[in-house]
């Protein structure tokens, strides 16, 4: 029988590294896109698109790891998640946050990669005429909406991360471990033990 204080591994080192690298890149992307609009003038464009490409690579690696080394269905929302205290590794709120990030980041990456053709990067011939003006408008709008959604998600994510009652999750994302007693507050430990 496991004791309540037993620490269990919640995030492996590589997953924590992915999380914090993604977080840092996301902050760079938001800073380089939003600060110039607020009047802070600096050479943002090069940093922005390079960071965008880095994020694309990191996300691709994260997806590969999730598909082949982890259980990707663990992050899917199931009916049992709706039951109080019945969550597996992730609560409903955590899963919703992940899904929202997935939407925001994928939209930003896809539209960002498309926009490179118009805005110009050294390794790609610049040709805005591959798409109509209306298409560019929609792509730009989607990219901007994804950025705004990301700002909202950063605020929500950081707010919950620093709430005292959620601090155990923040510790888990820095140190990797969480105690069973902390998990038991919102999770069904049987499901956790089964790796769900």
């Amino acid at each position, binding site marked *: 029988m496991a004791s309540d204080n037993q620490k269990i591994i919640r995030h492996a080192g590589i997953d924590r590294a992915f999380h914090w690298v993604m977080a840092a890149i996301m902050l760079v992307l938001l800073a380089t896109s939003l600060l110039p609009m607020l009047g802070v003038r600096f050479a943002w464009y090069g940093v922005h698109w390079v960071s965008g490409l880095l994020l694309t690579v990191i996300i691709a690696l994260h997806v590969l790891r999730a598909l082949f080394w982890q259980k990707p269905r663990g992050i899917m929302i199931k009916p049992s998640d709706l039951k109080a205290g019945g969550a597996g590794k992730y609560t409903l709120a955590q899963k919703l946050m992940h899904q929202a990030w997935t939407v925001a980041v994928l939209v930003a990456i896809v539209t960002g990669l498309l926009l490179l053709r118009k805005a110009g990067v050294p390794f790609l011939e610049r040709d*805005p005429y591959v798409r109509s003006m209306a298409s560019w408008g929609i792509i730009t709008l989607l990219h901007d909406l994804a950025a705004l959604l990301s700002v909202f998600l950063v605020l929500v994510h950081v707010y919950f991360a620093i709430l005292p009652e959620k601090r155990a999750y923040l510790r888990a994302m820095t140190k990797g471990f969480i105690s069973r007693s902390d998990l038991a507050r919102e999770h069904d430990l049987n499901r956790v033990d089964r790796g769900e």
Partner: protein
Amino acid sequence: MLRDMMPLFDLYQPDTLDNALDLADRLGPEGWLVAGGQDSWDWLKNRTRRTRAVVDLSGIAELKGVRETDGGIQIGALTTLTDVQDDPLVRERYGLLATAAGRVASPQIRNAGTLGGNLCQDTRCWYYRGGVDCYRAGGNMCYADTPEGQNREHAVFGASRCVAVTPSDTANALTALDASMVIRSKGGERVVPAARFFVGPDVNIQRMTVIEPGEILTAVRIPGTWAKSAFYFEKVADRAAWDFALLSLSVALKMEGETIRDARLVCGAAACVPWRLEAAESAIIGKTRNDDDIERAAVAAVEGAQPLNFNGFKIPLLSNLVRRAIKGAGGAST
């Protein structure tokens, strides 16, 4: 298009700098400041841009003329290019600037155009001037840097989405001379080195200088650092007069006997800002003007250049200009 008809706007003609600053502050972005008008009238007559109010600065006497300062000179922003070209003090100490001012456009335009206006003028990218919704005009596209874009005059250095270049002949001369720009507003005065006065598209894609609404460029200060150095200015354009540069080069060399003790090489019409050729400078500082070092400088000058579809000629042209300039500095400027 009614190209000969001035559109309707409120015209203000202040006769003191304080009045002008009041107006600039009150009108903000809605007040279009005009010095000689050689750039502004095109915009307004072509209806490419509109404004509610024009502040005509040409009647402000205190912003005209050249005067000696501690070790250098100060030139009022409203001093005409002809006056800059002909001023004895400028000619004696800063022949580079006198030559550059004398190569602007045509005598008629130099009689009306001012030094401040020449420095603050907008780019001549014809897509932008034609009124398309490009990045610089607040849009989301560059029409010059496309497979079909006509970009013979455009940038080979420092492009970031927008590939427009600075059209100013005096800007690169003043950058070479380590000049500073005096900018006044209701809130006070700030002095900005030429190297930071001009802004590339990477920093601000809609402006070419750091001047904000409500501010006025009042003077240009040139320190004594490069006075009476060995100078060279050359402007290459399709026509000998009344044309913008395809490339221009300002060079100042401090000589100690046959040795180059310090050097400034600044290129115009190659980037959105006056483009300092620091690698070329390094190649000749501490050397004599021998062929090997000049060749090294000519090669170093074009390092990092990224030509567009139709402006590849600027790269060998710049190398040749650098060769000619280093050999010719101190002699008769072209």
